[in-house]
């Protein structure tokens, strides 16, 4: 019984720890910029793969949109970085996003047809929810530079739209 409780406690910690980390992490603007670029790049890569591999027109259209929109958001971020003359600084969150993106791509590459579509869309729902939470709880509250904060506020509705769009496809393919 004690062993069961310890296992449950450990499992709960694994589930809660990343959220707690995201909420309490203090980031500077260059780290936030690196996170924004990493988050967009991860979804662009997944979208490019889905454009090639999926045979479903809804999934293909969604993937194409992810590539277009996240490329536009990344351009906003990189233009601002150039304007402010700062260098994005890699950090635990940006590295974690990239690693998660690579793991997702490796998984998706092994799948075909409906299994691919389901895995891609399921991940898009989770990914956009995670990024949205990070934008609200960590990135916007920590951003010091007014232009960076404004950019984050400006692009936030794009993530909201993508999340709803992904959920619509997820529901229609069940």
């Amino acid at each position: 019984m004690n062993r069961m409780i310890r296992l449950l406690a450990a499992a709960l910690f694994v589930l809660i720890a990343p959220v707690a980390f995201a909420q309490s992490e203090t980031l500077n603007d260059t780290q936030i910029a690196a996170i924004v670029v990493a988050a967009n790049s991860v979804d662009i890569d997944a979208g490019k793969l889905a454009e090639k591999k999926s045979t479903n027109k809804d999934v293909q259209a969604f993937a194409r949109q992810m590539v277009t929109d996240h490329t536009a958001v990344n351009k906003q971020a990189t233009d601002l970085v150039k304007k402010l003359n700062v260098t994005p600084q890699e950090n635990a969150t940006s590295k974690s996003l990239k690693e998660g993106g690579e793991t997702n791509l490796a998984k998706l590459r092994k799948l075909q047809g409906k299994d691919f579509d389901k895995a891609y869309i399921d991940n898009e729902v989770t990914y956009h929810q995670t990024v949205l939470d990070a934008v609200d709880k960590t990135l916007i509250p920590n951003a010091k530079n007014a232009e960076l904060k404004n950019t984050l506020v400006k692009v936030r509705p794009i993530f909201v739209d993508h999340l709803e769009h992904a959920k619509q496809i997820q529901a229609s393919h069940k």
Partner: protein
Amino acid sequence: MDRESGSYSWHEARKIVPLLLSIAIVSVSHADEVAGAKHTVVIENMQFQPKVLQVKVGDLIVWKNRDVVPHTVTASSGDTFNSGKIEPDGSWSYRVRKKGTIPYVCTYHPTMAAQIVAK
């Protein structure tokens, strides 16, 4: 003019016709200018603002994209129109041709929907 017959002589007609033509041209160009009111719909924060636009037939609607991503303005039913891609900072306009409610969406972002009510 021949006062008894009420008809114009050829000489008089030559004077009057250019005058009538110029009046007609001025009227047409003026009618074109006042064909309808102009309305603006701003596309920002992944929304059409205003979400419901009241217009009259003949009015001009201009959509301005202030988002960082491209959008479309595409009628779902009723009077049909489709802007194609409107780039960031771009705009597209449409003159209302028929009465009725026209729901429209952005085909790239299906959560974006609004409507025109033409009277």
